[in-house]
């Protein structure tokens, strides 16, 4: 399978340029160029296109050297069965290093063909010229490459010393060529690795351990206690649950079922060890064991610094950051004995193949890694991990398996771009020159072994130490006394290279420090650099960029004129990215001038403009270089301004884009790219260079604007504010404190045994006493069973009317289990007294109400007595149903009896003593139940009375919306004044409403009819199915309910005034409240604003306005917490759209931050909620529905 000719021999002949393959390739050879008799050219390169456009650039190089048109060249990248092994695609090496043999191969092929043509045409080589593969000479003599090759199979051995074209002769290289991949990408025709489908492919998901993002330590691979396979028994099409060490995967026929299985699988793990506190990176990195490696030691550094007139020790800190691929990694594997194929988005196909061979204990030659494009990775992401996952699952099930990592898994487990600590000791001499420069850097990162190797125990979880902290560790300045030491150290959490590796942090320190020196010396920072910069191309670049940006010398910082809260500044930084093994190679030179605007009140930093200059040597595809510079500027600005991975003491906590924000369109700077014309110089890598000066240029600009030096990234509003306050010698301004919060509603259902023992005992005793009396007076008896009545007993009209009434009464809402048969019961209803299971009310004779006569039914509805004489619990709201008219009860009975009978036993209730004693309910009824039918109020309109009948009767609104006493009875004194149900607050329907805008009849009508009121929000939680059921009722009944409920409210405000108030509230809460939680603000912006920001672009579904939402204005945060945790999967209507559940993407602390932020931001007049985190914890662990 190492012979690339094998599958392509359909054409008669070919010319290949090859070299013998390295070890493991079974004596075959590697092909670089292949030209077939039809004149088409295929170029093979071991690197891969990570979205940077190298496929296009390599095609240009080959076309140029071969003298064929660009369109004739197909570039094959990264398939281990056909491309040469050229190592991993890292460090901007492709153009500088990997392209060299390809270019030589193309040139060699040209020389060979021209020589052949000279013979064939009987002309001297010098007299021939080539046009797109056609070799021509005088007398119209010509022959094409294809004709020369004809039926022959020609192989030429690749040479290292091949004469290649002079740059002056270039016609294709150096010209901007459109990317070849974009038309297919823009139309959905390109097959990314995510899009691979092979016959009989299954779908897998993995379940990762709780030590998320940590890959070293004895617990890695040894923490799994048990996997409960029975917990996923009900998943349709589940094929396998696979467990090897700490590796767990599920495989299903359909992807959504693999997703469900992974979420539902019950797994127990050992406790996760404690991590160092990564909120304090400096301490954590200093404590991490390290080995010093001196990179340069020139002059007597210690003496020079000791003699400095002004010593300036400084420390700079870089945070953990994410690669943040937009597409979580994905792979497909097809494991067969002796032939394993994987489709992968890997950066390093050959290295991955070796990993897979180790994992599977199979020889490399049996494994074919086919590299397809994936989402940009910018370094080592989870592409290799997921490939190994897929292989393990495919081997387990014997069929091809596709594994897609989730967003949460990619965020948590991708090998992070590591935090880094840079210390500079140095200072100024009296004349303002640099006394000495003693630089130390700590980079706790390695190559991040492929995860499955660690989880399965194939590789010991002992962290390797990589020597990669040295990239651009030596500053570009020619200081007389300089020492640079890289403290090589193992990772603390899983970490590996990320664009620029250690160069951006090192440069952040170098370029901030020299700015600090210039400030202290009273010299313009660019002029100061030029005193020490000896590299001529660097000097040219610095001068060119300064000129382009219109840099004005600033030897002394001047306080800028403030524009309101905004101050502006400008900063410079320069870097030569040095990559690969020390001392490495220089890639393109890069220099930045950044303009920033800093809001001194909010702390927001905006990078408004960047002049990015670059000397890239020969630019193969200048447009491609420009796009790379744009990409680097934008991504590195994002890294500097906002990117920082959050951890708790066990794992990574940032698992979605709210917790790890990246730059968005409104924050993208204007970019002016300056590309130095150096087409006569060798080409240099351009994939990373422009990222390197970023952080320092921005920090220097912030200093210019504010006079405050920031030595730690990212430049978040809270860090800037803290710095500004510190600089001004002012203690942090106290946040305006909200008035103390009133105690949470005492009407909440609480477990009466938790704290109200005395009251409950009294009440229970009272019930017992009353029951004694009641049983004597009213001995409840069984009503004889009947044969199930035939549906034809009733008219269609009666049944139809009964159907409406059943909808009004929400029978099916409580009496149907999720996804179960309608009204067949079994749904668990959580009450403070225990769990009550709703009964089967289908007309099944044995398990339902099929044997119930109408009198038995009526007695249950009016008195709460089962047909057999048992008391029913008032979770069944007979206290309301009693108000129903006889005619309506008969219609309801008719409807229920006319439905299909479903046999379903109801599970036994699990109630605590004494509530498990049904006879006590007699006493309860005597105390709290009035069984009289509805009595209209003659002083009110007919519509009001109709509404009252619906609301107070079958509608049983008070069952949730009225507070209850210790025995679970609605408090008559606080009718509809707000209650709790199933972990949700049922808000007050009276003038006690928390809504910022009073409810009106029209808004109530809209809410009950459609599930949404523009001025209040959408129905969610237990209210959504209620409104959904109300769809069966005619408009006039909904109107009547609205009229009746409105009569409880102060309805003084007219419609225009309500909407005007709404607009005012939205406007006033549109600007960020400075004191609100910055973490919460970012979570909102990343997770919520897309659907909730006022004035945002329309998306499918409604756009509920948080400023107006009653739940944000309530006394308790419960509904807000519930909806964030669980989302809205079943809205009243699909027109309202859906809300995702965030419970698996945010932890309790994050949701608490978000909830606190939302309250402060959108209900600024209301007191802050207390105990939010505990409430989140409670809500998360309630019985999920």
């Amino acid at each position, binding site marked *: 399978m190492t012979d690339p000719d094998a599958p392509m021999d359909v054409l008669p002949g070919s010319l290949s340029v090859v070299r013998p393959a390295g070890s493991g390739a079974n004596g075959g050879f590697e092909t670089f160029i292949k030209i077939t008799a039809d004149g088409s050219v295929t170029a093979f390169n071991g690197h891969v296109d990570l979205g940077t456009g190298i496929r296009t650039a390599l095609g240009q190089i080959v076309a140029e050297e071969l003298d064929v048109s660009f369109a004739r060249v197909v570039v094959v990248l990264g398939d281990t069965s056909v491309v040469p092994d050229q190592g991993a695609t890292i460090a901007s090496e492709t153009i500088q290093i990997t392209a060299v043999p390809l270019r030589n191969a193309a040139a060699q092929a040209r020389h060979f063909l021209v020589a052949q043509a000279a013979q064939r045409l009987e002309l001297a080589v010098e007299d021939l010229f080539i046009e797109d593969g056609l070799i021509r000479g005088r007398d119209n003599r010509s022959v094409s490459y294809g004709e020369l090759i004809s039926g022959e199979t020609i192989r030429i051995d690749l040479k290292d010393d091949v004469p290649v074209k002079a740059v002056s002769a270039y016609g294709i290289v150096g010209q901007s060529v459109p990317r070849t991949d974009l*038309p297919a*990408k823009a139309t959905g025709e390109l097959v*990314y690795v995510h899009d691979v489908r092979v016959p009989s492919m299954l779908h897998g998901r993995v379940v990762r351990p709780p030590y998320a993002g940590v890959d070293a330590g004895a617990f890695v691979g040894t923490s799994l206690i048990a996997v409960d396979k029975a917990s996923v028994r009900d998943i349709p099409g589940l094929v396998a649950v696979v467990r090897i060490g700490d590796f767990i995967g599920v495989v299903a026929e359909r992807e959504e079922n693999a997703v469900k299985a992974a979420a539902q699988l019950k797994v127990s793990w050992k406790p996760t060890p404690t991590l160092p506190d990564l909120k304090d990176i400096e301490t954590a990195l200093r404590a991490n064991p390290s080995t010093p490696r001196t990179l340069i030691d020139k002059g007597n550094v210690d003496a020079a610094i000791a003699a400095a007139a002004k010593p300036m020790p400084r420390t700079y800190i870089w945070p953990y950051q994410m690669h943040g691929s937009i597409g979580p990694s994905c792979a497909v594997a097809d494991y067969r004995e002796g032939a394993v194929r994987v489709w992968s988005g890997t950066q390093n196909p050959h290295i991955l193949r070796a990993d897979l061979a180790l994992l599977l204990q199979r020889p490399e030659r049996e494994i074919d890694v086919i590299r397809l494009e994936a989402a940009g990775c910018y370094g080592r992401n989870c592409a290799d991990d997921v490939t190994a996952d897929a292989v393990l699952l495919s081997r387990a099930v014997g069929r091809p398996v596709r594994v897609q990592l989730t967003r949460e898994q990619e965020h948590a487990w991708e090998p992070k771009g590591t935090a880094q600590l840079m210390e500079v000791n140095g200072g100024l001499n009296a004349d303002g020159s640099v006394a000495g420069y003693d630089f130390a850097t700590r980079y706790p990162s390695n190559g991040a072994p492929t995860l499955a190797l660690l989880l399965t125990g194939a590789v010991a979880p002992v962290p390797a130490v990589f020597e990669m902290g040295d990239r651009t560790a030596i500053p570009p300045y020619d200081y007389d006394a300089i020492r640079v030491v890289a403290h090589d150290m193992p990772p603390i959490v899983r970490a590996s290279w990320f664009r620029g590796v250690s160069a951006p942090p090192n440069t952040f320190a170098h370029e901030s420090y020299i700015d600090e020196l210039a400030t202290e010396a009273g010299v313009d920072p660019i002029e100061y650099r030029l005193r020490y910069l000896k590299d001529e191309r660097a000097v040219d670049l610095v001068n060119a960029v300064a000129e382009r940006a219109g840099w004005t010398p600033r030897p002394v910082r001047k306080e800028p004129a403030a524009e309101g809260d905004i101050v502006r500044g400008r900063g410079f930084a320069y870097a030569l990215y040095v990559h690969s093994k020390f001392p490495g190679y220089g890639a393109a030179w890069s220099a930045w001038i950044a303009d920033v605007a800093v809001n001194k009140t909010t702390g927001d930093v905006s990078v408004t403009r960047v002049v990015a200059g670059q000397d890239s040597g020969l630019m193969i595809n200048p447009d491609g270089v420009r796009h790379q510079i744009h990409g680097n500027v*934008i991504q590195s600005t994002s890294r500097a301004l906002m990117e920082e991975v959050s951890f708790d003491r066990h794992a990574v906590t940032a698992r*979605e*884009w709210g917790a790890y924000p990246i730059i968005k369109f409104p924050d993208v700077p204007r970019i002016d790219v300056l590309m130095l014309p150096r087409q006569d110089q060798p080409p240099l890598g351009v994939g990373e260079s422009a990222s390197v000066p970023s952080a320092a240029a921005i920090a220097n600009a912030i200093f210019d604007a504010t006079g405050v030096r920031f030595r730690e990234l990212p430049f978040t509003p809270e860090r800037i504010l803290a710095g500004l306050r510190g600089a001004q010698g002012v203690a942090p301004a106290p946040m305006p404190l909200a008035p103390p919060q009133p105690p949470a509603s005492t009407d909440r259902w609480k477990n009466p045994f938790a704290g109200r023992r005395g009251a409950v005992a009294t009440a229970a005793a009272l019930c017992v006493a009353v029951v004694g009396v009641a049983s004597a007076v009213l001995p409840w008896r069984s009503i004889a069973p009947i044969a199930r009545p035939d549906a034809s007993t009733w008219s269609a009209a009666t049944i139809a009317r009964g159907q409406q009434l059943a909808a009004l009464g929400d029978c099916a809402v409580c009496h149907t289990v999720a996804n179960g048969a309608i009204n067949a019961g079994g749904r668990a209803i959580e009450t403070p007294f225990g769990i009550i299971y709703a009964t089967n009310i289908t007309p099944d004779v044995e398990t339902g109400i099929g044997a119930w006569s109408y009198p038995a039914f009526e007695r249950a509805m009016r008195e709460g007595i089962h047909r057999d004489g048992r008391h029913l619990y008032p979770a069944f709201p007979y206290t309301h149903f009693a108000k129903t008219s006889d005619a309506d009860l008969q219609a309801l009975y008719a409807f229920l009896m006319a439905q299909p009978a479903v046999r379903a036993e109801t599970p036994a209730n699990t109630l605590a003593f004494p509530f498990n004693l049904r006879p006590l309910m007699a006493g309860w009824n005597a105390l709290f139940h009035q069984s009289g039918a509805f009595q209209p109020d003659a002083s009110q309109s007919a519509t009001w009375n109709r509404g009252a009948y619906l609301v107070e009767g079958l509608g049983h609104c008070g069952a949730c919306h009225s507070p209850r006493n210790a025995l679970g009875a609605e408090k008559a004194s606080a009718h509809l004044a707000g209650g709790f149900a199933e972990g949700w607050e049922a808000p007050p329907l009276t003038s006690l409403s928390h809504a910022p805008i009073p409810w009106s009849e029209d808004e109530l009508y809209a809410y009950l009819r459609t599930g949404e009121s523009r001025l209040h929000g959408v129905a969610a939680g237990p209210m959504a199915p209620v409104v959904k059921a109300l769809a069966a009722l005619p408009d006039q009944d909904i109107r009547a309910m609205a009229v009746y409920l409105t009569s409880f409210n102060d309805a003084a405000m007219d419609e225009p005034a309500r909407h005007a108030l709404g607009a005012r509230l939205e406007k006033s809460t549109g600007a960020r409240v400075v004191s609100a939680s910055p973490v919460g603000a970012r979570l909102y912006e990343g997770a919520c604003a*897309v659907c909730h920001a006022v004035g945002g672009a*329309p998306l*499918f579904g409604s756009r509920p306005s948080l400023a107006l939402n009653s739940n944000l204005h309530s006394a308790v945060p419960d509904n807000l917490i519930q909806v964030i945790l669980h989302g809205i*999967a079943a809205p009243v209507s699909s027109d309202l759209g859906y809300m995702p559940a965030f419970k698996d993407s945010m932890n309790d602390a994050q949701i608490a931050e978000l909830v606190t932020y939302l309250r402060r931001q959108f209900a600024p007049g209301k007191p802050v909620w207390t105990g939010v985190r505990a409430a989140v914890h409670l809500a998360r662990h309630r019985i999920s529905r």
Partner: protein
Amino acid sequence: MTQSTIRLTVNGRIHDIDAAADTALLYVLRNDLELNGPKYGCGLGECGACAVLIDGVAARACVIPIEGCVGRDIVTLEGLGSRCNPDPVQQAFIAEQAAQCGYCLNGMIISTKALLNRTPHPSEADVIEALRFNLCRCGAHIEIMRAAMRAAGHLVGAANR
């Protein structure tokens, strides 16, 4: 979840899908209909990689169950146009070379299309707002903005013809 056939109209064609009603539209588009345009990015509606048009409005297919799509008109990137016959928005993105890895491109094009559906002559601020919640990690924002602005102009031209 009880399984029943759900009828979807995608890119003008009717499909009867045998999947649970709560299945995310994205999985059905990708796996049952083998459409590659919409991509899985976050599963939370945050990033926009999965965008499709539902009744002409941008929608995040990763958070919308198929039961909510019955009777609606769904259009994916493939439904806009092809390499041979691209939609003007697709053409504008190709002309401006508006992608690096291209994974977010689907969402960018769909969001631009949705914007132009409702605002044929958007301002630059309109375009920024329309793309605000579409994440791009490669930093192709400048080219994407240019493409969206070009598409706006292009469509104006087409309408005038």
